[in-house]
């Protein structure tokens, strides 16, 4: 038995134990078709425009620092106490030297509230509309050309902005309220502990020249508290709950991700338990305090100890951020001023 076809065509051309020309052509053709098919299929599957973390030819973006108004004379943190939102916010910002220290004429200011839930303002699970109104008025008074407010609540952004009362403030003061849309996101690249490449609500930052974080002070089921640092979580897209496994790491990563112009912690009414959603007025404690500053680690440190009235030793993300040089957890070491509204 021989593999060589016994026909006249191949006689004298093939080695005794080789294959015939026809069979070789068939095999080579099949192999070629297989290779070509693999290449075509691979090309079909490849998504050149899709950001796949780790493929180095396409980098994600990094947010620029929005810090402004550094001063050796003026405080970096202010604590104001009072019964009224507007006056207390005004007192805190005034103690820092006024909003004009941070905002210049013509600035486009992005204010990031916490609108994670469709809860009414009284339950203190979201940024209070009175706090937004007070801050926005000060920003406009300092000469800002435009204010953008934006957040990415996972559940129904329109419902969250409506029920939290922030949409009404946006309408009232003519603020640009940006809802997250599919094309509002861009890849973010960071060298965080866990936050390295992720989709990010980028649209509000395309034109913003200054950024202010405006967060409620509240209990959180997973990371003990949600304050100014945790507030930036609301800018992430995708199934961000995956980070809940490493919640302290990612919250500390936000101090690396975002260098805001100013952060303001609303401690007028503090959600002391059953956070981050709350649901009962009995969960809320009136504390009548606004903390503003340029170091969110210091601001949160004050909030945790003096507003939530807890032991800072248990707040892992504060220690992580401090140890990474992203802020100072020892808020008393900051140049701070405490005032009464």
């Amino acid at each position, binding site marked *: *038995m*021989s*593999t060589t076809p016994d026909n006249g065509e191949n006689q004298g051309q093939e*080695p005794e*134990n*080789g*294959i015939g020309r026809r069979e*070789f052509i068939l*095999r*080579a053709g099949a*192999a*070629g078709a*297989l*290779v070509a098919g*693999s290449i075509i299929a*691979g090309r079909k599957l490849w998504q050149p425009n*899709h*950001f*796949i*973390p*780790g*493929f180095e030819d396409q980098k994600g973006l990094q947010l620029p620092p929005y810090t402004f108004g550094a001063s050796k004379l003026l405080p970096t943190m202010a604590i104001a106490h009072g019964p009224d939102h507007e006056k207390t916010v005004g007192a805190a910002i005034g103690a820092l030297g006024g909003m004009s220290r941070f905002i210049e004429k013509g600035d486009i200011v992005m204010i990031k509230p916490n609108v*994670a*839930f*469709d*809860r*009414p303002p*009284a*339950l203190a699970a979201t940024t209070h509309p009175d706090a937004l109104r007070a801050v926005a008025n000060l920003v406009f008074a300092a000469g800002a050309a435009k204010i953008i407010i934006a957040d990415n609540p*996972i*559940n129904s952004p329109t*419902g969250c902005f409506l*029920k939290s009362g922030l949409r009404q403030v946006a309408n009232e003061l003519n603020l640009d309220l940006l809802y997250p849309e599919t094309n509002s996101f861009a890849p973010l690249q960071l060298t965080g502990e866990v936050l390295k*490449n992720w*989709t990010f609500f980028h649209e509000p930052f395309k034109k913003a020249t200054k950024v202010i974080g405006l967060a409620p002070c509240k209990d*959180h*089921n*997973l*990371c003990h508290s*949600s304050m100014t640092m945790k507030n930036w979580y609301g800018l992430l*897209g*995708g*199934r961000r*709950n*995956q980070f*809940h496994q490493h*919640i302290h790491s990612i919250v500390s990563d936000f101090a690396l991700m975002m260098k805001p112009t100013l952060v303001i912690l609303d401690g007028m009414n503090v959600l002391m338990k*059953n*956070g*981050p*959603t709350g*649901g*009962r*007025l*009995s*969960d809320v404690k009136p504390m009548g305090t606004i903390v503003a500053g340029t170091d969110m680690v210091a601001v949160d440190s004050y909030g945790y100890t003096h507003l939530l009235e807890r032991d800072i030793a248990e707040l892992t993300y504060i220690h992580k951020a401090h140890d990474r040089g992203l802020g100072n957890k020892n808020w008393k070491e900051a140049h701070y001023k405490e005032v009464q509204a």
Partner: protein
Amino acid sequence: MAPPPVTERQAKKRDRNAFVRTKVPIVERISAVVIVLLIAGIGIAIWMKGQRWDPNLYSLRTDALNSTSAAVQGKAGTLRTGSGAQPGEESVVKEPTVAQQSPAVKNAGEGEPASGEMSGEGGNEAAPAKTASSAPAAKNEPMEIAIPGIKPMGKTEFYNPDNLFEKIDGRAPAYIGFNFQALRSRSFSVDGADSSYVDVYEYRMDTPVNAFGMFALERDPNGKPIDFAPDGYSGEMGFFFRQGAYYVQIIASDQNAKTMTAAKAIAVDRAKSIPVDNAGLDARRRLPATGMIADSVTFVQDNAQGQAFLKSVFQAGYQYEGAKLQFFLMVTTPDEAAAAWTSYKTFSGKFGKVTDLPDVKGAKIFQAENFGKCKVIYQREGELGGIVDAQDAAKARKFVEEYLQGQIR
């Protein structure tokens, strides 16, 4: 001339040679190498892609599955009924009457041979948390509430354990810890109250015990009792109660009288529509109310006080004659209660002094001193309970004796 005869060895060699190609053309060799390299390259590329996973690319969109859910609705084979219980589980199929069923239940139950309900009753009250739901799995039926003066603000929202975080984000793990099954939520605007609304949340857990567990965890110690649900209270901006395996929250947008009236009407409506089921909660109901510290009732499913024989235990703190006492209670069969009492007594005797106390109304009682603390444990007719970790032995004993005599209720 005839060819020489071929020997068997020669024939084998000839056949073997026929399958061996010793002179493969160089083009074919190169082709083979290229193919092998390509296969290896594809393998490496797949591996590399697997190392750099983009969660957004492959994330599950549960809403995409909605279209398939209709196909299985009404198919009993997809439900875990009594006959479909897992090994080791006891169950009794119990079909609530139509009058007891919620609107969702009524619709879901149509055409189904069994409601799919499994409860801890049927002689297995001692392990209520291991049984399944007191109501059929929630089908995605809209929440319709026919009360004058309110209007739905949007569609009913549905969540399951996989996407609950979309609604309540970081609070979700607390609910999932109590075997959360489904959430149905809808908002209603209130006529005549400007911008006012009421949010309704119906969290369904797997058992009434777990629904109670979550309810107790979030309970407002200052809440006022309500008359339409035994496990419930009203707060300044809402109504909260546990009914069956459901934990229901009715949250008003403000304290406006009209809004609160609407909220109460909705709460009453919801309480009526959910079947009453207290399976596994008998022990909690026997906990005395006198002196109970608000918000102190807890449920321990296994190994209460580190003892394997203490299962499905309810415990609560009490203020009693100036002392704080911790009282616990377990309901089981008389034999198991007696055996557990004996085991507890034996265990306590290994680490301290045990004293038998006189029976009170047929209840056997022992007192033990362990590590500077006192416990007084009784058992009677399938009930085991007592005071643990007491600093004042006399008050612990007095409390237990008064409870057994019915003086503390």
